[in-house]
C-alpha cells in the first residue's frame, strides 16, 4: 500500500514537472513591456481607399505567412469590403479586420481564456490554450476570425500559427513590439494613398488622435457598444 502511494506521489510530481513549463513559461512573455497607458488603434480613411487596391491584404499575408488563398476554408485576417448603399447607390471600399474591441465578445465567450486582450488593447489568441471550439467565431460581429482547417508548413518564426486553432489580425503585434507599424499600414502608405493610420488612441497628441478629433471617426456596428480600436472615416 505504501509503495503504491509513493508511486502515485512520484507519478503526480513527474506529471507536474512535465506540464508546468507549458502552463507557466509563456505567461511572463505575454505581459512583457505592455502597458495599459497605451491603447493601440487604427484609423481607416475610406475616402482614400480605392476599390480594387488590396495592398493591405497582400502585405498582411506576406508578413504573417498566410497563403493568400480565398477558399471557404482559408484564413483571411484582413479583407477588402466593397459596399454599395441600397438607397443612394453610393459606393465605398474599405478593409475589415479584427476591430480590437475594448469589450471583445470573443474574449467573453472563450471557455479557456485563450482569447485575451493585452493591456495595450490588442486582442490576441493564445495558441497554447486555444482548444479550437470556434465559439469566438460565433460571437464575433465582424467575422474577423479564421480557423486553421489544414496542416501548416513553412511558418514565419515570429508569427506562430496552429492547425485546429483560431486566429485573427494581431495588429502585427510582433512589429508593434519592435516599435514598427502594422504591415498593412506601411503597405498602404507605400502606395501613396495613406488610407490607414496606426497609433496610440490614449495619446491626444498622436496623429491618429488628431485626425479623429478633426474629422470624427465611426465604429462598425457602433450599436453594439464594443468600443472598437479600429475606427473609420467616411462611412
Amino acid at each position: 500500500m505504501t509503495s503504491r502511494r509513493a508511486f502515485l506521489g512520484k507519478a503526480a510530481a513527474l506529471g507536474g514537472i512535465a506540464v508546468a513549463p507549458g502552463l507557466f513559461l509563456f505567461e511572463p512573455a505575454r505581459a512583457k513591456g505592455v502597458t495599459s497607458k497605451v491603447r493601440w488603434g487604427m484609423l481607416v480613411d475610406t475616402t482614400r481607399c480605392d476599390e480594387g487596391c488590396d495592398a493591405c491584404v497582400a502585405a498582411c499575408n506576406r508578413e504573417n505567412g498566410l497563403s493568400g488563398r480565398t477558399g471557404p476554408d482559408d484564413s483571411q485576417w484582413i479583407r477588402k469590403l466593397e459596399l454599395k448603399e441600397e438607397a443612394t447607390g453610393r459606393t465605398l471600399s474599405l478593409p475589415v479586420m479584427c476591430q480590437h474591441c475594448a469589450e471583445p465578445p470573443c474574449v467573453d465567450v472563450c471557455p479557456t481564456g485563450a482569447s485575451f486582450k493585452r493591456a495595450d488593447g490588442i486582442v490576441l489568441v493564445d495558441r497554447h490554450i486555444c482548444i479550437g471550439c470556434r465559439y469566438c467565431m460565433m460571437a464575433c460581429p465582424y467575422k474577423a476570425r479564421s480557423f486553421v482547417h489544414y496542416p501548416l508548413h513553412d511558418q514565419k518564426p515570429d508569427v506562430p500559427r496552429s492547425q485546429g486553432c483560431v486566429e485573427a489580425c494581431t495588429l502585427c503585434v510582433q512589429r508593434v513590439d519592435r516599435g514598427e507599424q502594422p504591415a498593412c499600414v506601411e503597405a498602404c502608405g507605400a502606395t501613396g494613398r495613406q488610407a490607414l493610420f496606426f497609433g496610440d488612441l490614449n495619446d491626444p497628441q498622436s496623429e491618429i488622435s488628431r485626425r479623429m478629433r478633426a474629422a470624427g471617426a465611426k465604429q462598425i456596428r457602433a450599436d453594439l457598444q464594443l468600443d472598437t480600436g479600429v475606427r473609420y472615416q467616411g462611412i
Partner: protein
Amino acid sequence: MAAIAMREIEGRSRGWWGLFALGGALLLGMLLAWHAMETRGHVITGMTNQVVWGLPHVFAVFLILAASGVLNVASAASAFGKGFYKPLAPLSSWLAIVLLAGGLAVLGLDLGRSDRLIVAMTHFNFKSIFAWNMFLYSGYFAVVALYLWTQLDRTAGRHSTLAGRVAFVWRLVLTTGTGSIFGFLIAREAYSSALLAPMFIVLSIVYGMAIYLLVLIATCAGSGRELGRGVVERIGRLLGWFVLTGLYFVAVFHLTNLYLAKQIGVERFLLVDGGVYSWLFWVGQVLLGSVVPLLLLWLPATRGGRGITTLAAALIVLGGLAQMYVTIVGAQAWPLDLFPGYEMRSSFYDGVIHPYAPSLPEAALALGGVAIALLGALLGVKFLRLLPANLSDESLQPGEGAH
C-alpha cells in the same frame, strides 16, 4: 400499490446483439472520422470559416438537450410526486447519463485541438457560458449518478426525493446554460434572445421523453416483457403536452423576432426563402416533428399503441434534429450584417448566403454520439435493474394519480 420488482433484461437476443453491433460499428466510424480530422484537419468536413459549427454540433446539442429532458420521467416521480413514474425513473436517469456522454463526446472530438481537452478542464474563463457548462455537465453526471443510486439501492432510497429535486433544479440550470450558448451571441441576428433558454428547456423535455419512449418500447419488445397500453398512453399523453408547449415557444420566438425590423431579413430567410432550412422548419420540425406526432399521441384511435407511439417518438426525434439544424446551421448561413443598408461583397463571402454540406467524416462523428448513447442504453438494461419486471397496466396502474 404493491412493491414492484425491478429486473435487468437477459440481453442475449438477436435484436440486442444486432443493436450492439450497430452501435459498435458507428463508434468505430466515429473514431476513424476523429483520427482523419485530427491528421488532415477540418478541411475534410463541410464546416468552413463561414459555417463554423455544423452537423456534429447539431447532434451534440440535441443529445445534451435530450439528456436533460429524459430525466423528466424521474422528475415526475420525485419532484412532482407522481407515483406511477417511480418504477420508470431508473431507466430515465441512466439514459440521462449515456445521452450526455454521447453529446459531450461529439463536442470534445470535434474540437480543433481535441488533444487539449485537459486544457479545457484546467483553464477557465468564468465569463464564458461554455466554461460554466463544463461544470454544469460534469456536475450533472454526478448528481444523476447519485440520484440513480438512491433509486437502485434500498438503503439509499430514503434520499431519492431529495436527490430527485436537486437533479430537477440542476437540469433546468444546465439547459438554461445550453440555450444561453446561443442566446448570448449578440452578433448573430437569429439568436440574441433570452427566449432561447426557456425554449430549450421545453424542447429538451420533448426530445428526452421521445427517446425514453423509444427505448422503453424497444426494450420491452426485444425482451418479451409485457408493456401495458395504458402505460404507453399515459407517457405519450404527457409528451404531447410538451410538444404543444414547444410549438408555442417556437411560435413566440419567431413572432417576437418578426416584430423587430432588423430581424425580419433573417426570419424571412429561415421561414420562407431559406430553401433547405425553410423546408426543415415547416415540414421537418413543425409538421412531421410536432403536429403529426401530437395527433398520433392524442387521438383516441391511435394513442397508446406501441407501433404508433414508436412512430410518433421517432418523428419527434427527427423533427428535433431538423430543429437543431435550422437553429445552428441556418443561423450561420445567414451572413452577418456589418453595414445595415448596404450591399456587401468581399473575398471572405460577406453579404452572401453561406452554403453548407456535411461530409461523411463529420456525419460519422455526429452519429458516434448516438452510438455511445445506444451502447450505454444496451449495457444499462442488460446489467442494471432499470425497469420493472412487469410493465402491464395491472402492475403499474397508469390510471392512478393521472391528471
